[in-house]
């Protein structure tokens, strides 16, 4: 039924406030549900790759494990350490979760569609600002204040090390993220996600023209979301849990939700900027394509987690400043030269 309600972008009624609200609720519901369900998927996939069984006792195939975890998180005692800075300690998890969802306000997830039998147009993007890609990257960067403040406020040496690592990791990989998306931005000539999508409607996907930028963006994306080769902020073997050492219950859960929402955002950006966006592909409608691409990039992150060990902080810095950044600069230079010629 859903496939019949998607129309083409031409000849549509005006975007009204109710459409935007429906879109916002849709994004929140879908992403929050996926972020919760993601924990189950992550455990199952990791178990499959490591020849284990994963969760299987709660409900069929362990599907209700998610509910059990939720009940556990909500009913756990909320502990604030005696010597922590209570105010900052309490708002730090909220920063992570809130910025992750604010970033999603400017991300197009499904194509435009009208609700059947009404004139309500639900736009592809909740807030179509002209500089969408910069806004999303900036908001995700602001989200790293969560780990930073959490580590500094808890009065715990592991926390301080975790927040110091947040600062260096963010300051280094922000450069790579910016430079790697700069090349596609130069080709498209716009900062709007909708323009990125439309640029690839007829032609090839941008990943064909910009393979280096795509790989660099993915690597920097792992660093920005603290996923496994680069999860130095909470590296269990070295610094207990880093910035989340003193957190318990739902405050810890908020960090988790923020991290999963950021993974999905990275997936959406990669799909729209490099992998053809929500355009139809052969006979497959666009909304299936975009869900497939986001799901694949989510799976890819879990796959990498199962396959790669952690890196040391000095290896991380070496990789960023001596390999990735020069590559990104050269890529931008070559793109500029080709565009000029």
């Amino acid at each position, binding site marked *: 039924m859903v496939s019949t309600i998607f129309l083409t972008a031409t000849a549509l009624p005006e975007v009204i406030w109710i459409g935007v609200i429906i879109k916002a609720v849709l994004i929140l519901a879908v992403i929050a549900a996926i972020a919760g369900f993601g924990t189950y998927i992550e455990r199952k996939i990791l178990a499959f790759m490591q020849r284990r069984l994963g969760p299987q006792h709660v409900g069929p195939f362990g599907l209700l494990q998610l509910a059990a975890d939720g009940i556990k998180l909500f009913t756990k005692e909320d502990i604030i350490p005696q010597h922590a800075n209570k105010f900052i300690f309490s708002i730090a998890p909220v920063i992570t979760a809130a910025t992750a969802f604010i970033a999603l306000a400017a991300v197009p997830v499904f194509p435009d569609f009208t609700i059947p039998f009404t004139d309500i147009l639900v736009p592809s993007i909740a807030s179509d600002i002209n*500089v969408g890609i*910069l806004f999303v990257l*900036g*908001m995700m960067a602001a989200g790293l204040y969560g780990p930073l403040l959490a580590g500094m406020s808890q009065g715990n040496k592991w926390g301080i090390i975790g*927040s110091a690592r947040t600062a*260096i990791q963010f300051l280094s990989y922000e450069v790579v993220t910016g430079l790697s998306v700069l090349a596609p931005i130069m080709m498209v000539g716009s900062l709007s996600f909708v323009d990125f999508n439309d640029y690839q409607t007829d032609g090839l996907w941008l990943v064909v023209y910009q393979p280096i930028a795509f790989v660099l963006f993915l690597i920097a994306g792992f660093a920005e979301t603290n996923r496994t080769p680069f999860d130095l902020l909470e590296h269990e073997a070295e610094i207990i849990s880093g910035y989340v050492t003193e957190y318990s219950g739902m405050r810890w859960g908020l960090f988790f939700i923020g991290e999963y929402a950021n993974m999905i955002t990275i997936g959406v950006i990669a799909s729209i900027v490099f992998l053809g966006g929500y355009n139809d592909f052969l006979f497959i409608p666009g909304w299936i394509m975009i869900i497939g691409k986001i799901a694949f990039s989510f799976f890819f992150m879990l796959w990498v987690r199962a396959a790669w060990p952690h890196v040391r902080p000095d290896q991380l810095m070496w990789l960023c400043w001596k390999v990735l950044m020069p590559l990104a600069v050269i890529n931008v230079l070559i793109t500029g030269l080709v565009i000029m010629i």
Partner: protein
Amino acid sequence: MYETIAFYTFAISTTILFLITVMSKNVLYAMTALASGMVMISGFFFLLGADFLGVVQLIVYVGAVMALYGFAMMFFDATRDIKEKHQNPALVFLLGGLMALMFVVIFSAPIIGDNVQALYPIVEGVGNAQAVGMVLFTKYLVPFEVAALMLLVAMIAGIILAGKKMDYSLTTSEAADEEINVEEKLQADIEREKGEA
């Protein structure tokens, strides 16, 4: 209507946040207020329709304040209990007075705002980034290039200052140890000569 409400919200929160930055002795409060104040300022750019500048404000200052946190982490104990005691009532009086004046200006700003004319009005059909680019590469070309040159100088200086022994790993490489030993020997020699003299 909504814009007015948003303007007052952003204006008052910015003023209060920066006042906390100046007055608080707790480094964690001061830094956090500074960072959130910078985010609030970007709200003004969005209100004025300058999306690009707003996002640039967000990205640049989020990163810059994050670097300041690094220094705060090195020099201060962020969780120590600090008594927020202000010995100088004149300073509080002065800053409070300035803030009150600021609020008066803020509330009268829409009245003054009617008479303001934009030097570079928004051109229809031209995006924000393009408009900034056009102004940067025509009217402000020289300051722009000078700023680029200064940044280049700063970058080279930073690399030279931080780049000493960059190729050695301080923990594993023996070459670094030898170099440190040589320097220590030199230092000892100099001190001995001083002693003899």
